[in-house]
């Protein structure tokens, strides 16, 4: 492959949307209210839409006949490059929305930079996605505030979720070799530059939600290099089930 770095870079971006979209999709039909159920499915649909744009582009770059579905569903666990945050399970609604919020704030900042990419396709995709993600961020922030500044029980649950998920936030700003190469070429986003603003924004909102900002300085990472938590394998066995069981068929 000629453009191996670009290909891998796109996968790194898209896998976050893919895995988070899959997690949100699990909730469809099981939300806390009908209205919320519909809203969460909308987020999932937005994310899968993004995934398709990225993977169709990646497939074109690969140029060897592989399709968006091959890329989405036929890699091995170690080949998925999403951050650990997005693969965390829907433990309860506080976890689901906390995960969404912690990712959305990053995602929005990331896309806003990606719009400036010298790669015109990527910048066009970013341009389209950013509107969707602005809404996601608004939606998840509102919910973190509601649950944080709601009842005693909801506050406790929201705090637990933030405390548990906090350890996965630093990875968002970790640069891989591919990232560095792409930044150098003017294609990629320098995520290290987003970190300060991210924690500022997140902390502000947590404060508004009357929640404590976790003090832990110990962070987990590895997802970007394909070293995942145990949760991902199960998610993939669902995601890949049909393609693995019935190889080389059209659906």
């Amino acid at each position, binding site marked *: 492959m000629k453009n191996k770095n670009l290909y891998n870079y796109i996968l790194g971006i898209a896998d976050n949307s893919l895995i988070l979209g899959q997690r949100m999709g699990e909730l*469809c039909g099981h939300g806390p209210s009908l209205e919320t159920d519909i809203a969460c*499915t909308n987020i999932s649909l937005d994310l899968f839409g993004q995934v*398709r744009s990225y993977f169709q582009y990646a497939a074109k770059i690969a140029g060897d006949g592989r399709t968006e579905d091959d890329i989405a569903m036929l890699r091995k666990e170690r080949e998925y490059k999403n951050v650990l945050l997005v693969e965390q399970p829907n433990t309860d609604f506080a976890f689901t929305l906390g995960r969404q919020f912690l990712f959305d704030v990053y995602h929005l900042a990331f896309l806003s930079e990606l719009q400036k990419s010298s790669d015109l396709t990527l910048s066009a995709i970013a341009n389209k996605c950013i509107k969707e993600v602005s809404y996601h961020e608004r939606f998840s922030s509102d919910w973190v505030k509601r649950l944080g500044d709601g009842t005693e029980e909801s506050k406790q649950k929201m705090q637990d979720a933030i405390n548990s998920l906090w350890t996965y936030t630093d990875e968002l700003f970790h640069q891989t070799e591919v990232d560095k190469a792409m930044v150098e070429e003017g294609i990629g986003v320098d995520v290290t530059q987003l970190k300060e603003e991210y924690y500022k924004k997140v902390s502000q909102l947590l404060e508004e939600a009357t929640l404590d900002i976790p003090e832990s300085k110990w962070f987990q990472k590895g997802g970007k290099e394909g070293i995942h938590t145990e949760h991902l394998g199960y998610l993939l066995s669902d995601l890949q*089930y049909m393609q693995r069981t019935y190889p080389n*068929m059209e659906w």
Partner: protein
Amino acid sequence: MSEEQIKNLEEQFEARIARDEKIEPKDWMPEKYRKTHIRQMSQHAHSEIIGMLPEGNWITRAPSLRRKVALLAKVQDEAGHGLYLYSATETLGISRDEMYEQLHSGKAKYSSIFNYPTITWADMGAIGWLVDGAAIINQVPLCNTSYGPYARAMIRVCKEESFHQRQGYEIMIKLANGTPEQKEMAQDALNRWWWPSLMMLGPTDDVSVHTAQSMKWKLKRKSNDDLRQQFIDQTVPQAELIGLTIPDPDLKWNEEKGCYDFGEINWDEFWQVVKGHGPMNKERMKARVGAWERGEWVRDAAMVHAEKKQERKQKQAV
């Protein structure tokens, strides 16, 4: 009000419906009209909501991204349709929570077809094609029903559902034209969903209890048997077109009547499932009740948060 006055009002009421006038929420209506509508409309809403579960079962496993977004959007539409219908029913003076309570306690019914399991991907095709196909036949006439909010909700539902059946049939086409394994999967799904789909159109006319009254109120425009015949006549050629076989050895074109003759429906099975003995009745209810109970602290928190916000606003204003 005296009995005579009520009788008078009732006559005027029936005359309005006969003239094709719509009844709106604040209009006077016979208690029976209100109750019947609450029952049918909430049952319809429950069916949409329970109907999300069998298809939701395949969202995480859809075979391609294109299929996944289509399925997600379809199941989401069902949530929307349930919501429109609950809202319309609320205009009759019952809250959504009360309706949920009736569903969760087993007092309210929903379409029995959703008590069958979805065991292969082809079931997504069969449900879209057959179950939505049968539902459309049931629903289109309701766009003209006498109760305004119900009619308006149904217009919205029917407009949005137009892609649902195509989505399902397209899945079946792909499978039927695919590998032998895929074709077998499609045929197997048709075999399992065909008869329950026929049952979905309701008991035969001779045992159907509500039909006469429902016809008068335009809750029904055609009898169950007529609807079933219509469904069979339009579906058989669709099956033939993609080379699938309807699992009914007695199915035969009747030249004289200009429609298909078909075999005996197993009504024992139908009533067993209605009574709660279908393969998935318990699981479906468990999933619904579970989601509702797990959501309680979330709903409470949102309410308390809204009140806090309101209080703060008022304090600022002082």
